[in-house]
């Protein structure tokens, strides 16, 4: 008796019996106290270009020290990193890397940023939080790539140390979230608004999957919601789907669909719309005012950058983002 706990970190809000592990696989109730099983135990560590996260309006052409642990709060059928996100922490190869060592390594590899990514950073909240706090002291920025499935209180607390977030907005229907991801859409929309309010730089990624979330009406609706609630300056990255994990029978998303999504987003008033997982001019940044090319990219690499002091070099308009 008296040993049940409820986790309030993500909207799943697991109620756990003694020795039961949460849905994310990495939080355990032991004798009436909740513990993290992955603190200081990343299973993926790498130095990546910040463009890979993807962040296109955040310190371009710099590197990000990237870490992840096992586990995830969702169970998306198309997950690109399912080998680690849908694994128990005892089944992944983990390093022993406490928060201060993460910061030390980031400094050693000359990274301007630490990124919490690959799986869902919410599941290693305490590890991320402690690392971000130390990184701040050493002028290293903190960014995360998240599904945004996190409750308001922990998100506001984390926002004190988070400089930028790339949020996967996976679709704009509750049906997709419940059938394909095992979650809900509403908490993700709430998290986006909270991040905006807290002044965290925001970019959004939307993976377009044929037949599942490629309805152009819904994409238009989603973009209108973004413009209305987050503003027109939030960059959106439409990402092309390739068959993976449990969705191996679906075809890669046609180029036409990708281009239509981009047009719909621009018609809805979004100023910075990118297409990812495919080569096109839509991986470049064009000034929203004078339409000149201001950042030319080839994949994750920046070929030219015409932003100086956060302004377009051609018309002196301030370009939304974090540039120094």
């Amino acid at each position, binding site marked *: 008796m008296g040993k049940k706990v*409820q*986790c309030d970190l993500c909207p799943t809000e697991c109620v756990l019996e003694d020795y039961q592990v949460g849905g994310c696989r990495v939080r355990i109730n032991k004798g009436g106290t909740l513990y993290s099983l992955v603190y200081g135990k990343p299973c993926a560590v790498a130095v990546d270009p910040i463009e890979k996260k993807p962040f296109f309006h955040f310190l371009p052409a710099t590197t990000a020290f990237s870490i992840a642990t096992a586990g995830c709060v969702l169970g998306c059928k198309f997950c690109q990193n399912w080998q680690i996100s849908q694994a128990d922490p005892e089944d992944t190869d983990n390093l022993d890397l406490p928060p201060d060592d993460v910061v*030390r390594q980031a400094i050693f590899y000359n990274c301007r940023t630490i990124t919490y990514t690959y799986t869902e950073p919410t599941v290693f909240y305490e590890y991320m939080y402690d690392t971000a706090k130390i990184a701040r002291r050493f002028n290293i920025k903190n960014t995360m790539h998240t599904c945004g499935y996190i409750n308001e209180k922990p998100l506001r607390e984390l926002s004190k140390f988070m400089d930028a977030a790339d949020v996967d907005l996976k679709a704009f229907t509750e049906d997709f979230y419940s059938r394909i991801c095992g979650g809900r859409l509403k908490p993700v929309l709430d998290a986006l608004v909270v991040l905006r309010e807290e002044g965290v730089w925001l970019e959004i990624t939307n993976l377009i999957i044929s037949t599942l979330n490629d309805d152009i009406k819904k994409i238009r609706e989603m973009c209108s919601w973004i413009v209305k609630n987050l503003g027109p300056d939030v960059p959106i990255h439409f990402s092309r789907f390739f068959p993976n994990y449990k969705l191996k029978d679906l075809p890669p998303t046609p180029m036409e669909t990708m281009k239509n999504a981009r047009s719909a987003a621009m018609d809805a008033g979004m100023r910075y719309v990118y297409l990812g997982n495919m080569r096109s001019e839509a991986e470049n940044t064009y000034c929203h005012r004078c339409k000149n090319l201001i950042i030319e990219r080839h994949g994750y690499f920046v070929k030219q950058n015409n932003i100086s002091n956060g302004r377009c070099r051609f018309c002196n308009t301030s370009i939304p983002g974090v540039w120094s």
Partner: protein
Amino acid sequence: MTRRDFIRFFVFGGFLSLFRKKAAAFTKQELKKAMFWRKTG
């Protein structure tokens, strides 16, 4: 951040961390208490 703070963190901290890991290998590791949860009964 002064130069001295930086060296203390980066160089001394690095050495200490190595020793800490050596020591931890021989002791039972404590789990980290989670944030944001409550007892329900």
